């Protein structure tokens, strides 16, 4: 375990118009490979925090440190380059495009790279790597050419996870990954997240379902009305006591 957390945010604040969505939030993630559960009711500030870490929004005040040095996260691309992968609640995919193309959106393997955006896609490699990435998350599909719209909700989430796992470097953020999933698919997602730890990858798992988070989280952070109201280690409180904190 290193002494420095992978990610530290200090005094983050965010207003949306007159709404104070994030109030002076200071948190650390990824001291060693850990699963952090981020809990809170709707409007607690979880999504705002995640959007800032994944580069979709910028904080009004405060700063973010990666491995102890101040980092600029001004776009999703910055966040990815720092080693943070985000799995969005709505599975960020273009439904009409193939699985392989979706996995590599924005990070396409190229031939003739010097042509810039006009470089040719390395489609053979895309298909091969995509199928391997899917197998790695135990998703066995016949072809990576299938349009994503033909997949079930769980399979789509599987592709999103495969994408994040393939590019993951340091940290994975999962925003309500078990929403709209069947029981069996939920179990699978929870297994992926637990497995991340053994692969040396930290994760932040956002959910309002305590029963999904409690069994796998090393730590839990509870937010309410834009502020952090509790930080708990595994076993500090029983699941019922945590539930009372949220509401």
């Amino acid at each position: 375990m290193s002494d420095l957390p992978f990610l530290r945010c200090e005094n983050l604040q965010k207003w949306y118009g007159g709404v104070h969505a994030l109030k002076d939030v200071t948190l650390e993630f990824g001291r060693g490979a850990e699963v952090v559960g981020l809990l809170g009711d709707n409007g607690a500030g979880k999504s705002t925090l995640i959007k800032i870490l994944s580069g979709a929004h910028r904080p009004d005040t405060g700063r973010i440190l990666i491995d102890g040095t101040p980092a600029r996260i001004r776009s999703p691309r910055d966040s990815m380059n720092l080693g943070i992968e985000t799995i969005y609640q709505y599975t960020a995919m273009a439904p009409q495009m193939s699985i392989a193309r979706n996995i590599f959106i924005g990070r396409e393997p190229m031939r003739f790279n010097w042509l810039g955006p006009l470089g040719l896609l390395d489609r053979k490699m895309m298909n091969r790597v995509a199928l391997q990435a899917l197998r790695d998350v135990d998703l066995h599909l016949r072809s990576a050419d299938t349009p994503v719209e033909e997949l079930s909700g769980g399979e789509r989430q599987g592709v999103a996870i495969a994408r994040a796992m393939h590019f993951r470097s340091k940290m994975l953020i999962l925003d309500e990954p078990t929403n709209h999933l069947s029981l069996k698919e939920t179990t699978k997602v929870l297994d992926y997240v637990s497995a991340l730890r053994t692969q040396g990858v930290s994760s932040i798992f956002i959910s309002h379902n305590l029963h999904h988070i409690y069994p796998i989280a090393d730590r839990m952070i509870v937010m309410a009305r834009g502020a952090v109201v509790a930080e708990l280690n595994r076993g500090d409180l029983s699941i019922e006591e945590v539930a009372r904190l949220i509401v």
Partner: protein
Amino acid sequence: MNQPTPGGAVTSPGGQRRRALTKRLLLLPEISGIVLLVLVTVGFAIVAPAFLSMRSVVNILNIMPELGLVALGTTILIIAGEFDLSVGSVFALVPMVMLWLVNLGVPPAAAMALSLMVGMAIGAANGYITLHFAIPSFITTLGMLFIARSLAVILSNLAPPAFPPGMPVDFLVARIDRVQVSVIWLLVICAIAAVILHRTKIGNWIYATGGAQQAARDMGINTRAVKLSCFAACSLLAGFAGMIQTFRMQAPMASAGDGIELQAIAGAVIGGTALTGGVGSVLGALLGTILLRVIDTGMTTSRVDANWFQLAIGVLTVLSVVVNVVIRGRAARMRA
């Protein structure tokens, strides 16, 4: 190994593959365009056998590039999730600017390059206003439709619309054994566009931007830059198409391209482009254009009153989408 299917029939792996292939084929967005083109061609060939003569085929080819290039640009932009209603006006304005510059003494080659840049700038302006103020491109380009048309009329009144001698018309409209060179331009540009759309990184970004803009943005794609380039490309192609027509007719017309924007959208839709973005292809744009031109020529050959042309376009546009929905619905239910 043979496996019983839930229906009770026995299928071989070969049959399975064949069915999967059939399903892929039927799910192609271009499928209804292909079906309609075959039907219409056979229909005209029966009614008027002269329709399949070399002469009429060459005729169809020679008038294709102008609509084809506009439809191509329109298709690319619709795939990216935006519209351009101003292409018809740009079609008239670009050659008008070119001739105005030539009449001012600018060398023809420079005038052509400059006027094409004007076309591109109009597209960029459409894109910038649409994206910066987050307003529908329908509105922006509707405004530009009037603005560019008005400018074309003003320019044509400013300098008497004479076609100056010594313009390098050959490289666009010379004929090689009756076929106009512009056909080759169309094919080359389509080939380049096809490679860009279907095989390159920016092509992947265009589909992602049009198909799921939020997802594309979250995956780090600069969707604004992608859309802006598509706006510029669409306008550039429209201007180039207008130039071809002016060279072909050797007369600038302020009214050129009037209504071509709607024909281009019809062509794109007939070719399987989805107005919601993210779906479409270069082949589809070509198919749509060919179909419109086949009907055009076919009706003339079979001596149908030309006034029926618009009715035919209308029916085909709706029919192609309906056929697509029906075929795709069937295919989606196929076991494969």
